[in-house]
């Protein structure tokens, strides 16, 4: 419960500080939802930048981060003026209509259930416990933005991770998870404001309900990933861009650049924001002044602001690994060796396939990837899967043809189509990497839902309302079923330790290590990458990293010498490596002659449970 109160205070503080910054910049907004969402985006951005400065200066220590965050929260809560905020929402009278009230009720219920699920200790998913939550914990231990050479995403941009550092310094992993959930909350509030600004309130409310109904959002927004955070900053950047195309005021363009910069410095996939924004800015600039140079100037201004915010992350990667986007495109930049070259563009079949060196794919390409790129197949995946977009888009987007004469809806659909192409060609055909598409698609689907729900033929409107509400009931039921397994730990009927021992395969071994390992121990994780719950320094033995490669050592003594050089004192090992991980290149340690020989000579068993073991490296035994 303390975490839930903390996240509400954090959001209010973000709105407070952001609103003050926007007030000083004299930005104008049309509705309270829009104002609050932009303020929160800028507020969160300012907090992340503060953490970045602390990280660069070497002061990213738990006490410093907690003190700065509390000061920021006090200032933010003072600036937000809760009374004013509430009265503005009251003035907007959005709950007078029973239909709207019903939709708002389901949105609120969905948000509460997802918040409660996010309040559980982080568990289950690999990426948060391996990267997004694990890295900020390491930064806080070391006090700076260190480079963990064995962790695959160690040098990716970390804006969201720095916000998670605030959560970890103030509380625990669950608050960090709730920070991610808060970006989901803000996306929902934002899409209501966007719908209201560009269409009407009904569109906004239906769009909010549709976005929240996406299984992908429900599952990933409640865990410590960063994708909904990326979506939030991208959404704001595109929204600010849309506002700029209306007002053509430079300050809106600056705001667009700032938000695009925050998106890029959240995840490399945020670069797609530039791919869409730059041509729009240049063409609008050209149309306004009739001169190409004016358009180019505006595009350059936008690019300079956006890239300036992302620059510290690229410079960090360049200094530490010789490649600004390490380990991507390592062949191009010649950065630190990395075991595997990650694919940047999706579905490449070589320059001989298709036209223009493979940029326009061949018929074979289309047939090969049809299943992977089809919105129909995305819709029918449920739970945990990163492509599960839900059914509202398939059901409702065809109806946007009824509004084709509506210029704003037409532009929205063209944007969605362009971004869909980007997801297909550059974002691994993975909706999780391009969630921002679905915010805008929710607005378009929301238009269709609002159209049917207010249809002039009353029976059609009533039938549609009944069906739409039924879908919301079913989604809330599913959200409740996701919350149920964590109910006891969230309400304090089960301790986090009991909860995690039953759900995290390596929690037991890490709990033992945290209690018993001497200071200055360093652990090698064998066959596992989720290091979040281990307090001692550690490194991975993932086949993709290039720091410790088992093939390089022919005798146990060579291997021992390497471990000694790396400062490794203990080994935490999975007893049976899964078939998938074994196929990826992890050894089956207890069946592998080299590892068995090393174990017999140099390892002393300290701990064992059903899943993992902990060894101490016994340096003298081999003699």
């Amino acid at each position, binding site marked *: 419960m303390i975490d839930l109160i903390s996240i509400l205070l954090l959001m209010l503080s973000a709105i407070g500080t952001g609103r003050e910054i926007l007030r000083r910049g004299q930005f104008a907004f049309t509705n309270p939802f829009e104002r609050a969402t932009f303020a929160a985006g800028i507020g969160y951005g300012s907090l992340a930048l503060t953490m970045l400065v602390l990280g660069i200066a070497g002061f990213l220590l738990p006490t410093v981060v907690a003190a700065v965050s509390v000061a920021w929260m006090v200032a933010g809560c003072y600036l937000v003026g809760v009374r004013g905020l509430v009265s503005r929402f009251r003035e907007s009278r959005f709950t007078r209509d029973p239909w709207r009230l019903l939709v708002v009720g389901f949105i609120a219920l969905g948000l509460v259930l997802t918040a409660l699920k996010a309040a559980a200790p982080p568990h289950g998913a690999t990426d948060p416990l391996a990267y997004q939550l694990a890295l900020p914990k390491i930064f806080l231990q070391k006090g700076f933005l260190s480079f963990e050479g064995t962790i695959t995403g160690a040098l990716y941009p970390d804006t969201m991770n720095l916000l998670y550092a605030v959560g970890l310094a103030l509380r625990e992993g669950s608050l960090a998870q709730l920070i991610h959930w808060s970006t989901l909350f803000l996306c929902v509030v934002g899409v209501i404001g966007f719908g209201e600004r560009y269409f009407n309130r009904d569109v906004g409310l239906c769009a909010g309900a549709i976005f929240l109904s996406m299984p992908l959002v429900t599952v990933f927004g409640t865990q410590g990933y960063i994708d909904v955070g990326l979506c939030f900053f991208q959404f704001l950047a595109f929204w600010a861009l849309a506002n700029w195309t209306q007002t053509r005021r430079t300050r809106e363009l600056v705001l667009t650049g700032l938000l695009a910069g925050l998106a890029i410095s959240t995840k490399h996939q945020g670069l797609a924001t530039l791919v869409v924004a730059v041509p729009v800015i240049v063409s609008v600039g050209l149309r306004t002044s009739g001169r190409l140079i004016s358009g180019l100037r505006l595009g350059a201004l936008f690019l300079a602001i956006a890239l300036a915010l992302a620059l510290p992350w690229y410079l960090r990667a360049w200094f530490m690994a010789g490649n600004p986007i390490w380990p991507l495109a390592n062949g191009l930049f010649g950065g630190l060796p990395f075991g595997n070259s990650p694919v940047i563009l999706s579905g490449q079949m070589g320059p001989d396939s298709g036209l223009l060196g493979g940029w326009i794919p061949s018929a074979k390409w289309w047939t090969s990837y049809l299943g992977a790129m089809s919105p129909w197949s995305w819709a029918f995946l449920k739970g945990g899967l990163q492509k599960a977009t839900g059914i509202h888009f398939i059901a409702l987007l065809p109806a946007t043809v009824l509004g084709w004469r509506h210029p704003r809806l037409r532009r929205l659909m063209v944007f969605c189509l362009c971004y869909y192409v980007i997801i297909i060609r550059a974002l691994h055909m993975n909706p999780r990497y391009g969630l921002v598409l679905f915010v805008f698609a929710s607005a378009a689907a929301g238009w269709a839902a609002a159209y049917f729900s207010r249809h002039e033929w009353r029976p059609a409107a009533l039938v549609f309302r009944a069906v739409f509400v*039924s879908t919301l009931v079913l989604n809330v*039921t599913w959200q409740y079923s996701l919350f149920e397994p964590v109910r006891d730990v969230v309400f304090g009927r089960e301790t986090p330790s009991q909860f995690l021992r039953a759900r995290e395969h390596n929690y037991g071994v890490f709990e033992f290590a945290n209690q018993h390992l001497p200071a200055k121990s360093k652990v090698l994780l064998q066959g596992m990458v989720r290091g979040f719950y281990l307090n001692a320094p550690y490194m991975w033995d993932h086949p993709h990293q290039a720091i410790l490669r088992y093939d390089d050592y022919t005798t146990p003594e060579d291997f021992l010498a390497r471990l000694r050089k790396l400062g490794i004192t203990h080994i935490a090992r999975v007893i049976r490596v899964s078939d998938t991980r074994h196929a990826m290149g992890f050894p089956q340690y207890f069946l592998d002659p080299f590892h068995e020989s090393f174990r017999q000579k140099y390892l002393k068993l300290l701990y064992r449970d059903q899943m993992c073991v902990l060894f101490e490296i016994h340096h003298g035994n081999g003699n």
Partner: protein
Amino acid sequence: MKDMINQRDGGTNQWLRPRRWIELVLLSWAIGIFYYYYSLLGYIDLLRDLLSR
């Protein structure tokens, strides 16, 4: 009679307009696909289980 219907529907008989039929097709599509999805993926069973507890 026809005049009365036209008057009631705002001056023109809406059912003579193709748009009304397109709307009906799109509405039917949405309702049908919603039902197909939620029954296929077990949402309806989930609700039934929850209510029967």
